[in-house]
């Protein structure tokens, strides 16, 4: 099973739009979930919703999480820590721009790459 991709943006529209671009690229070959907005539906991120997204995109190969601004990263870290112990080690946050990162991570994942490889390819975007 391929690595799953989770997109976490402050904006529901950005999250959905990035997910659309991933789907266009890789179709249904990669488990994909996205979340944007806080508990009240405004701009922001929510630990509970991120947890739901990670579980929705769960793959035994792990999931790579793409985030936008600071709170999305902090809330995603919190969500990962709240996963069951056997899943915690197989969810990672990529250090990459959210749209480009999601597309390139998904493309890598669709070829059957490991979680470490998917994360490394996304992280390379930040070092270019």
């Amino acid at each position: 099973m391929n690595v799953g991709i989770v997109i976490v943006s402050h904006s529901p529209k950005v999250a959905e739009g990035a997910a659309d671009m991933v789907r266009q690229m890789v179709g249904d070959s990669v488990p994909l979930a996205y979340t944007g907005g806080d508990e009240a539906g405004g701009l922001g991120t929510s630990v509970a919703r991120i947890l739901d997204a990670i579980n929705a995109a769960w793959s035994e190969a792990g999931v790579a999480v793409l985030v936008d601004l600071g709170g999305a990263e902090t809330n995603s870290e919190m969500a990962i820590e709240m996963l069951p112990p056997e899943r915690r080690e197989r969810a990672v946050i990529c250090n990459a721009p959210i749209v480009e990162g999601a597309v390139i991570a998904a493309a890598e994942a669709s070829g059957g790459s490991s979680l470490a490889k998917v994360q490394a390819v996304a992280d390379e975007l930040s070092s270019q």
Partner: protein
Amino acid sequence: MQIDSALRRRLIEEMAATVEAHCQELTELDQAIGDGDHGTGMKRGFDAVLAHADKLADQPLPAALRGIGQTLVMSMGGASGPLYGTFFLELGKALDENPDRAAFAAGFARAMAAVAARGKSEPGQKTLLDVLAPVSAALAENETPAGIARVAAEAAEATVPMQALRGRAAFLGARSVGHMDPGARSASLIIGAVCAVLEGTSG
């Protein structure tokens, strides 16, 4: 000091009432240098805590603190949810049921360190750590509750001339100077609320 169920409930009520009373102020501070969600986020979080006040206050102090942290994490959203949540979760892990002053000061310091790790930040970067750090020092020096509240309020004021290096305000660079940090202000308000309740008790 003994923080019994009735006192735990008063502390929860006072924190929630203080956040409610200052919601608009926190929003305005955050609109100046952040994304403007701090007042509503804090209110959502502490309203959720207040809604569970009976259940939380009935638990021993460590479990009550962890329950508050969990509730804040799951309800606040934004960048401050995990920071405030982490603070209460770690304080709950650090304390036993009847901590003395030294144990409380040590627990507070540990919770502050966890917040710093969560936010990848340190004091001096115009965040709530700029309030937590001097309060932690005042606790270790056996300051009275009224004195600690004063330290917290002054520390929040002292963030005005700072330039933000963490959080959304960091994008503004030098333009963040001249505004009080909303997280520092909310931390001083919460600490002030707790101190006001404790000042009125024997502790």
